[in-house]
């Protein structure tokens, strides 16, 4: 009997420990599940003939007292770019090609406040928040030193910014506290230079310089209609596409020539 009682006590103790653990987990998860949501109003962008970029608004609910950072990025990939340099100490010309690995094609940030004020550098690196952190995990070939890498990454960012593909803005997420909830809203300009593909929108809730929660949604960009037909034809039936382009140009040239003769443009 005493053996049995001992066993029951042991089982009871184990169950108690498990319950405590479970409730603790539930508590932690519970707050996470309840708080952070994200929704983009425009998660399927269609590139048609008259496309000139778009706007995407993102809204959701977050825990009061947290700051927010929204990152819009394409999955990391590689890009090769022509590199200009000085030849013979005097003349600028193309000196080769630089390959960038682990860099997104598009990267843009929005936040409630200046990011360096609300997040620690370690956390920024961990979640690749900020162009500096993106640069740390980027690989650039061929560069001879760390200083060279920093220099060329800086040029890379300049190049990307010139076509609106990289952007950092802060203080543009607006917050609205309603009861126990905090609603946020931000409007993002979607650049027309961003090519078709999948883009990931991540929201980070930040407290005490640490990321405490994350949520994610996707934006899908695709070509439709005439634009899609032309792009596919140029790729898949190149000879036919080339021939049509040439014939159309010849016809246009002759056509305009005839119009000018009839119109008495030549005299």
């Amino acid at each position: 009997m005493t053996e049995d009682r001992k066993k029951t006590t042991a089982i009871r103790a184990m169950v108690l420990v498990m319950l405590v653990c479970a409730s603790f987990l539930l508590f932690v998860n519970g707050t996470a599940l309840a708080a952070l949501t994200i929704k983009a109003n425009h998660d399927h962008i269609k590139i048609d003939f008259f496309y000139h970029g778009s706007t995407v608004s993102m809204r959701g609910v977050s825990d009061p007292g947290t700051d927010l950072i929204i990152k819009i990025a394409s999955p990391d990939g590689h890009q090769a770019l022509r590199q200009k340099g000085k030849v013979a100490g005097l003349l600028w010309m193309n000196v080769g090609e630089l390959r960038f690995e682990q860099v997104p094609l598009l990267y843009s940030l929005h936040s409630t406040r200046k990011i360096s004020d609300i997040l620690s550098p370690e956390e920024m690196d961990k979640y690749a928040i900020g162009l500096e952190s993106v640069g740390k995990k980027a690989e650039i070939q061929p560069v001879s030193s760390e200083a060279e890498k920093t220099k060329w990454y800086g040029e890379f960012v300049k190049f990307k910014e010139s076509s609106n593909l990289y952007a950092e803005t802060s203080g543009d997420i607006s917050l609205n506290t309603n009861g126990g909830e905090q609603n946020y809203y931000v409007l993002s300009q979607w650049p027309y230079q961003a090519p078709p593909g999948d883009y990931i929108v991540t929201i980070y809730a930040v407290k005490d310089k640490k990321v405490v929660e994350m949520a994610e949604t996707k934006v899908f960009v695709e070509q439709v209609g005439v634009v899609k037909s032309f792009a596919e034809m140029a790729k898949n039936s190149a000879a036919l596409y080339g021939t049509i382009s040439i014939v159309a140009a010849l016809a246009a040239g002759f056509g305009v020539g005839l119009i000018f003769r009839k119109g008495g443009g030549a005299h």
Partner: protein
Amino acid sequence: MYLYLPVALTSINVLVPVGLGLAVGLLSGLFGVGGGFLMTPLLIMFGIPSTVAAATDSNQIVAASTSGTYAHWKVGNVDFKMGLYLLAGGFVGGLLGVQGIKVLKAMGNADFVIKMTYVLMLGIVGTYMFIESVSSMRKNKTQEVKEERQSAAGRFLSSLPMQTHFEKSGVTHSALIPIIFGGFVGVLAAVMGVGGGFLMVPVMVYILRMPMHVVVGTSLFQILFNCIEVTFLQATTNHSVDFILAVLLLLGSTVGAQVGAVFGRKLKGEQLKVILAVIVLAVTVKIIFELTLPPALLLGQSGGH
């Protein structure tokens, strides 16, 4: 109004390519050049990737030069026979040039050598053209003296075999001359990645001694065929021809070429030469600036020139 370009993957205000087309078409009809020297960098400036800019420009030149050739042909200013000889030479030269690039690239520092050769050549040709045409405008009546000076070279040229008369141009040459010089320009054009109009026009004026008005028409005829070939190659190998952009450009350039041709008829050959010389020199200066001033961006899209 903005339109989206399916191959360039960017959006552009339609007034930009139509306006550019008009301006470059005008130059084309006036001087018998393709205008790639102006069009390609401007398109890049408006956000078109460099490969797409170069390829689409050739497609557009097909239309502009058809329009221009047609306008010059109506008034009898296209020497088809000469044009065909030049084309034959240019075709072989282009093939040699493509091989030449490979050799130069293998030797290293190819871009430097190519750019320097091009700048020097444009500078020399532009200066010579300018001085020659200004002085012949001043003393129109002393032309006989000049012709005598040329006679030593002339004697050599007329001693070559396969002499044939080019009726439209009113000159007699060995058939080898246009073929060799067409080939020479073809090699350079392939190596430099430019159309070669700037070099072909002076060759026709000073070496083949054709009248300026026939030079313009014949040059356009020759450019037309070159650009058909380039457009097809670019479409099939690089997939970089943007049809929508080409259509927008040619809306302007075909009209521009007609206007240029009409306007050119009102100018004297010497006047055309002076203006062309100034343009060639301006392009030389522009390239020198590009080479010496630090660029705003040290990185650019791959491909193209």
